[in-house]
């Protein structure tokens, strides 16, 4: 039962990715061509509301469901990794049209070929783990 809330969030997230069309390769292609406001509207409004929510959580020092103070971790200040890794991710995102959330959702929609993308993404993560100490961060 402890995990039921996470399962519910996951199901909602999956439905939302389908209904918002953000799982579509076509929407990602369109976004990078700046031919529709759709994806920018989604990410922009998510961040705007998310920022208000996070600010309120911090201001009122809210506690999580288990009663512990909510800690929102800062991202590591690895700017080199962020720009290089981000660009590599962007190349893959625009090519496969799926980032690490949508690839699972697409599996649910019945797109069998996405197994190839997921398998390759696991390999990419594994190779990063192998090379991590040799890469600039």
């Amino acid at each position: 039962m402890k995990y039921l809330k996470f399962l519910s969030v996951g199901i909602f997230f999956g439905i939302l990715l389908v209904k918002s069309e953000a799982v579509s390769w076509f929407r990602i292609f369109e976004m990078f061509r700046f031919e529709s406001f759709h994806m920018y509207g989604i990410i922009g409004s998510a961040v705007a509301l998310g920022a208000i929510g996070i600010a309120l959580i911090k201001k009122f020092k809210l506690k999580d469901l288990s009663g512990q103070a909510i800690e929102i971790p800062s991202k590591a200040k690895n700017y080199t990794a962020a720009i290089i890794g981000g660009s590599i991710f962007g190349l893959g995102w625009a090519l496969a049209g799926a980032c690490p959330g949508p690839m699972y959702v697409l599996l649910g929609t019945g797109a069998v070929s996405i197994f190839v993308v997921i398998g390759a993404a696991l390999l990419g993560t594994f190779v990063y783990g192998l090379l991590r100490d040799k890469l600039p961060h």
Partner: protein
Amino acid sequence: MDFILDPWPWYVSGPLFALVMLSLTVFGKNFGMSSNLRTLCAIGGAGKWASFFKFDIKSQKWNLVVVLGAVIGGYLGSHFLQNQPDIAISASTVEALQQMGFQNPGASILPPELFSLDALAESKTWAILIIGGFLVGFGTRYAGGCTSGHAISGLSNLQVPSLVAVIGFFIGGLIMTHLILPQLF
């Protein structure tokens, strides 16, 4: 029911993505989907090769449950909550894709030219899916997050590294979409 069965506009979808992120925050967790790739590698025994994959897998179990939910949600959304599978991309995007040889751009969630089983008969399709997936997996871990962890969670928390990562997402995405994809089709 049409408001549920029709595609959800950005001003409905965007706030709901914020709700997903904030719900996980209130549950004491962080919204980040790409971490699951690392966890799955660790479950597969990647810790034998790199210390990066040696961590407490149990602490990430909740996130794998989110993944399981996402698969179920994808099934429910596409099979029961959709009037039609069309993706309402702009006329200029349709035109650009037609010029690249795509038959019915936007008639389905994914282009059959890349994702149908028939397309897997071509080695080019395999190359695109494998290279695309590899770059996503490698890049997202190198950058320390993806669209959920950096673009939504990170920017909402006003993290400068996330802004740098999102700029990177666009550098890569623009190069692929404008310079590389037109060479491939």
